[in-house]
């Protein structure tokens, strides 16, 4: 399977995404430049973390107008698997490819630490094959990761199984103290209705080697190997 990792000006998680796919998942991967207009030849895309365009104006707000985003949007509409991580989540949310908005963390401070997240559904491109309830330990590193939707939107997301990951304690239990940024309903990751676009704040691409504190991110990155091939064939 061939992955593409989009680099915007200010992206800084692109190197980790490339390393995680190449060293951790041992799949083919190549960078995609924000000024490109095609994603032909890729089976899955990663929109990585960072500070695209310096997060000026609003995180992700400028990157969504990059030339590559048209091709990314087409790829999504054709059912291609896309994973948005951290700033990539913000970009996808701004582009309307992922639901919700991301606000400044409730404590108004950047937060870098390891958290636990629980898989809520196995129906998406990046949770395919994972049992709901599976607990994954992943790092977070963000200042604007507080997922927000209105109660109506939340009900809508629940109903359509668009909540993919929630923050939890190490045993998988709900715990308000385990919610690191004040996200609505402890939501850490969501998907579009179809389930091919997944976006989350934690960093699976930094958890691909036990030497670095954990390799459970590979379960998310690897899930697409099962679902992605079908999706790619289906397009």
């Amino acid at each position, binding site marked *: 399977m061939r992955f593409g990792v989009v680099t915007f000006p200010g992206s800084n998680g692109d190197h*980790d995404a490339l390393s995680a796919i190449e060293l951790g998942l041992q799949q083919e991967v190549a960078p995609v430049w924000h000024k490109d207009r095609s994603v032909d030849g890729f089976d899955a895309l990663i929109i990585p973390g960072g500070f695209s365009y*310096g997060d000026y104006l609003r995180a992700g707000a400028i990157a969504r107008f990059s030339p590559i985003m048209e091709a990314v949007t087409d790829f999504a509409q054709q059912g291609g698997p896309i994973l948005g991580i951290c700033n990539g989540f913000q970009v996808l949310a701004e582009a309307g490819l992922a639901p919700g908005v991301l606000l400044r963390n409730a404590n108004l401070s950047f*937060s870098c630490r390891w958290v636990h997240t629980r898989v809520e559904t196995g129906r998406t491109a990046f949770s395919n094959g994972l049992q709901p309830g599976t607990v994954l330990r992943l790092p977070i590193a963000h200042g604007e990761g507080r997922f927000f939707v209105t109660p109506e939107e939340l009900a809508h997301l629940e109903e359509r199984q668009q909540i993919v990951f929630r923050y939890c304690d190490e045993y998988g239990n709900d715990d308000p103290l385990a919610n690191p940024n004040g996200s609505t309903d402890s939501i850490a990751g969501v998907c579009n209705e179809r389930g091919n676009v997944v976006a989350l704040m934690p960093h699976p691409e*930094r958890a691909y080697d036990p030497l670095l504190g954990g390799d459970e991110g590979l379960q998310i990155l690897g899930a697409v190997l099962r679902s992605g091939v079908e999706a790619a064939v289906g397009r």
Partner: protein
Amino acid sequence: MTITTEALREVALTRVEYDQVVELLGREPRPVELGMFGAMWSEHCGYKNSRPLLKKFPTTGPRVVQGPGENAGVVDIGDGIGIAFKIESHNHPSAVEPYQGAATGVGGIVRDIFTMGARPIALLNSLRFGSLDSPRTRYIFDGVVGGIGGYGNCLGIPTVAGDIFFDDSYTGNPLVNAMCVGVVDNSAIMRAKASGVGNLVVLVGADTGRDGIHGATFASVENPEESHRGVIQVGNPFLEKLLLEACLEVLQTEHVVAMQDLGAAGLTSSVVECASSGDVGIEIDVQKVTRREQGMNAYEVMLSESQERMLVVVREEGLEDVRAIFDRWDLHSDVIGRVTGDGNVCIMDGEAVEVNVPASFFVDQCPTYVRDGIESARIANARAFDVDSLPDLSREDVGDALHALMASPNICSREPVVQTYDHTIMSNTVLPPLAGDAAVVRIKGTNKAIAVKTDCNPRYVYLDPYVGGMHAVAEAARNVSCTGAKPIALTNCLNFGSPEKPEGYYQLERAVSGMADAARALETPVVSGNVSLYNESGNEAVFPTPTVGVVGLIEDVSTAVGMTASSGAVLLLAGQHSATIGGSEYLKQRHGMTAGAPPSLDLDLEIRVQKFVQDAIASRMVHAAHDTSEGGLLVAVIEMLDGSLGSALDFSCLASENGGRLDRLYFGEAASRIIIAAAPTQVEALRTLAEAADVPLAEIGRVNTSGVLRMDDATSIPILDLHDSWASGLKR
């Protein structure tokens, strides 16, 4: 024409220095020339008070690829890989505008690293503040921490280690030292050495504005708050990220002959340094420099300290390729001049000659001063105070004293700070902040890792600059050794008061001597560094603070250990048994004093202890190691226990060597000692190893799951209570 005192003050030159300029030139300097001499002959750029002293440092060794004099030092770690690193101060800007001061400090040191062609992989910072009880200090503290995180996080370089220390001496003049570490292919190191007459001088990055004019000059005078208004630069980490990626890409081509970032003194120092180190001349036209605002004159363009700019010397035939790369990264670049053969720095403003001066005048002819230092009688008296004349701590008070120390700002948890720094990005961080005595960062594509740490106990340096200077080097190296790494080189940042005062010069001179002797003994050459003098406010100097950053090498990354002991482990003290409360955190906390002689330091023992611990870790006999620093032995033990564990301690074997005093035994400080944690089955082998290494080894306790710290069968304290004290120290 006679120069006014006012004009001289503006460029911070003395009348004697001005006369030297006139003599060198054989004429009065033009206004821009005078401004450039002021900047280049400032302490910040010219090291005029420190250069003779810096010669004491050992700067060579088998691993040294690049010593001092370049943008950063480089050491060889094998396989053709070099580690480029340097530490630098941004003290005065941070005193006035803490967020931007600290942010641009990070920006400056990162540029120094990628200018060498190295990919930055880690950031560290060493910070000194007044008491957090002061709202002003709290504002500075929050701003500095925010600026470091804001800039480093955006760049995507992990901030992995550092140190923070509070003392009233820093109230008006905080210290912000930032260190960056990068990885470079030893065969592809770029230097700031212009060459090739006719080659083009390209300025890339931010447009040039009026910000920061005279920054280098004002870094070299006292009273930062008064002097720095209006000269603070504002950072743009997004632009720096583009500059970083574009410069590293440009260096992959064959077209670049030299690169020099614009830091202190802006275009002035980068043009002068490129010309001087390459033994060539450079001619530029300031009209070619894109400005941020209208109406800037040549003087302002040459002395602007606008951030995120880089000077690149390019072969003419490669210009198109180089500019195409900058364009791809949406970076603006201008060809502003050429390399010439006459050795002169020539600055044109269109047709008008603003500067025409041999580059060497700015650099080689910079005056240096060797002064006579005198020790302050007040400090000598403080050191002479007999700390053993104080009443000993009673056993009933041990618990209270311990709680107070755990909550002390100098000891308590740095978690609230490090959590705001991204330390997992780049997926290299093996030992994150607080997990070990130093951070461990792997080198991708190899089995190796480096361990990095900054340190300096300024109280020791204050009380005895020579011994304190040795301590700074030994402790930073010891921390690195505690992860299993072998220290291989160091960088330092000399933060001192005015060298023009005999007491200040004495501290600088003695501390440098102590550092040099320790660096030589520990075989950690000094490969880069920075000097920040005039750290004073209200006529009072800060504690002398020669911050040391050490880099160590781990050949097999899988052997690295942190500081957390596991249940069932035996705790052993390797090294020095005797401690003192002279210059200790305990003495400050309990008795409100900074006095007494700081711990002595036997460099031979230090070397043996560090080597022993490195060997024990490499052979996997030890699963945790921790240096005992501020707070002494008990504090160190607690730092090794996570909240669910407990420990039964028995320090009786150390009692006699501490004169039977509880304060020395529990809270006294000493160099050359490390607590190691090992499985009981390893103890015999460790004893054998220690004996062969001539290192004293004493069993001081066992780790259990009781959740209680039990000391010498007398005092019991729940560990969680201690952790609460420890965790709350930095919170409001």
